[in-house]
């Protein structure tokens, strides 16, 4: 029954989708205040390395490491967020992209800590820790009729799912509030927003830092899902990929980020049968879909049509 339905391959992909959703949201949140940040790969790396190093060297439980990783990324977010306020549009985008590259180069060169490009191996794996923990409580996966490795992946998937739901809940609630309106107004006209008594510095840093936090969180989880990280995981490509999730899915609405991450993570898997051509197809797809739906696949109007609209304000 359960044991037969649970396919670890699907759970694995599902887990990557959930991590990518977190990453897409980490771009979406600053973007909703008009800040195009391409630093997510860098923040992700900071989260991943922090958590990996802490759990490897100090035997900390994974959840402590993950929280520390996310916090480390957000502290960095504050530090770079404040000076970055002076930048707008593409300047900010390129500067944050550069930040990510600088972080990666530091990982490459800080050999004694990061083992350079060889990367960190033996990072405690989230699912296995959970398995051990539940065994400690006297629970065996066989009791619910599934194999150990099914349990491992199922538990990872569920943990990530809960976190993604929590993040979505957080962001949506925030959006439909005074804070969300402030962010939106800054996005539309920051000067006018400031004249309305909004401390744009504060809100921009808040949004930027939240983005860094989500990226750091995703990075830390990534490290404990995949068990091995190296600087190459946090390169320019990652930053661009995440940006594409958000914009392709529709950057006006948070559901766009979710959809973009879902669709574009799944696509290369679905296209495995034409694996040689999948990137060519991917490139063409981006061009065509942007031409047809430049605002991204999902936008407020489309959601209205689908009656996704909630009683108050909708999912904006």
């Amino acid at each position: 029954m359960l044991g037969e339905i649970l396919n670890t391959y699907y759970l694995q992909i599902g887990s990557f989708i959930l991590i990518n959703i977190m990453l897409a949201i980490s771009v979406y949140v600053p973007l909703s205040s008009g800040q195009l940040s391409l630093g997510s790969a860098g923040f992700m790396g900071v989260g991943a390395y922090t958590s990996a190093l802490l759990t490897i060297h100090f035997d900390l439980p994974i959840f402590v490491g993950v929280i520390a990783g996310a916090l480390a990324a957000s502290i960095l977010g504050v530090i770079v967020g404040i000076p970055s306020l002076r930048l707008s549009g593409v300047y900010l985008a390129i500067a944050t992209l550069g930040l990510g590259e600088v972080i990666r180069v530091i990982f490459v060169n800080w050999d004694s800590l990061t083992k350079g490009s060889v990367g960190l191996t033996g990072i405690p794996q989230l699912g296995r820790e959970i398995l051990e923990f539940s065994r400690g409580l006297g629970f065996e996966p066989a009791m619910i009729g599934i194999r150990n490795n099914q349990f491992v992946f199922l538990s990872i998937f569920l943990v990530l799912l809960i976190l993604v739901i929590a993040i979505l809940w957080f962001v949506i609630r925030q959006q439909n509030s005074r804070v969300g309106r402030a962010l939106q107004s800054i996005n539309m006209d920051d000067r006018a927003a400031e004249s309305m008594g909004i401390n744009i510095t504060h809100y921009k840093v808040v949004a930027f830092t939240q983005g860094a936090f989500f990226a750091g969180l995703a990075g830390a989880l990534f490290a404990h899902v995949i068990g091995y990280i190296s600087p190459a995981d946090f390169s320019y490509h990652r930053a661009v990929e995440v940006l594409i999730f958000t914009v392709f899915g529709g950057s006006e609405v948070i559901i766009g980020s979710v959809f973009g991450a879902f669709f574009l993570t799944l696509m290369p898997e679905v296209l495995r049968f034409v694996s040689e051509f999948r990137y060519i197809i991917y490139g063409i797809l981006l061009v065509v879909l942007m031409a047809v739906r430049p605002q991204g696949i999902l936008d407020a109007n489309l959601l209205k049509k689908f009656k996704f609209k909630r009683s108050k304000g909708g999912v904006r």
Partner: protein
Amino acid sequence: ACGGGNTTTESNSNTGEDGVLSAKFGVISYLTGAGAAYGEAITNGLKLAQQDINALGEVNIELVIEDSAGKADQALNAAQKIMSDDSITAIIGPTLSTEFFAVAPEVDLNGIPILGTSTTVDGIPEIGDYVFRNAVPESLAIPAAIEKAVERTGATKVAMIYGNDDALTKGGFEVMERTAKEMGLEITTIETYQEGQSDYNAQLTKIKNTNPDLILASALYNEGAVIMDQARKMGIEIPFVGGNGFNSPQAIEIAGDAANGLIVATPYFGESSDPKIVEFNEKYEKEFGKKPDQFAAQAYDALFIYADALKRAGSSDREAFRESLAETKDLEGILGKFSFDEVGDVIMDVTVLEIKDGKFIEFE
């Protein structure tokens, strides 16, 4: 021809209609992206081996090939996809050590044997009981090459250059540095470059000014060949010693005459007159229209190692397969006699080669 023919257990459920023992192996390979040439050579080698093995009629092998695009997370996805098929006996690949580090622990935990054919970084078979490799690790090949080079040229001063943002070249560099220090060589300078760079003049100018006798270059052939080209243009005529990734006929293709003077250690010598190799070269070239490299050859041998283990195990059961695999001893492949040591690493001799007049020749 070893292990004896013990595949007669008729009742085996893995036996096909014609009474031949069959098994399905998963392959994870780097087929799209910058390094796809490596994955291509490997899968070609595997496909050729599959034909040859199945033609022999003793066992029947089916390959399930998945792309990893050279990325750890995609390699893991591919592995999960393969593992979710219960009829898979064992896995070959992925191509890069960085991918392997992510995939192998997972595969090991599931009790599925996995073999690296190109993963040359230290610490691969140590990942677990089910993890093996037939690739010659850098820590074996590089010292052999350096020792021979120093022996012949009498070099005392070496300059080093390596790609510091790539796990393989970085790992290779570490071995080079260790070897150089152990041999008491003076290191005049250590330079790095980054992936995709095209201008190495700054590094080379610096190296040139330190007047070394030998350059140790831990680079993939792509960058390595360009480095040599720019070095020769600058008037640096001394030999280069390279690692695993540098060892490719492509280096000659890219750098032309400038590639002369490259010294590498390899388990596979393409120009060898050994009839097994000549035959392999011919078959490969006929099938795929180009010359095989060491990755193709190692992959070719790898599938024979699997086939042999399968025969000896007498069943496609993973556990039985693992056991007979670990016992592989003195198996005669195109690269010579092959055995695993106690952790599952390769035991093999290497040949040191040199490029001279646009050709790899044995370096004596």
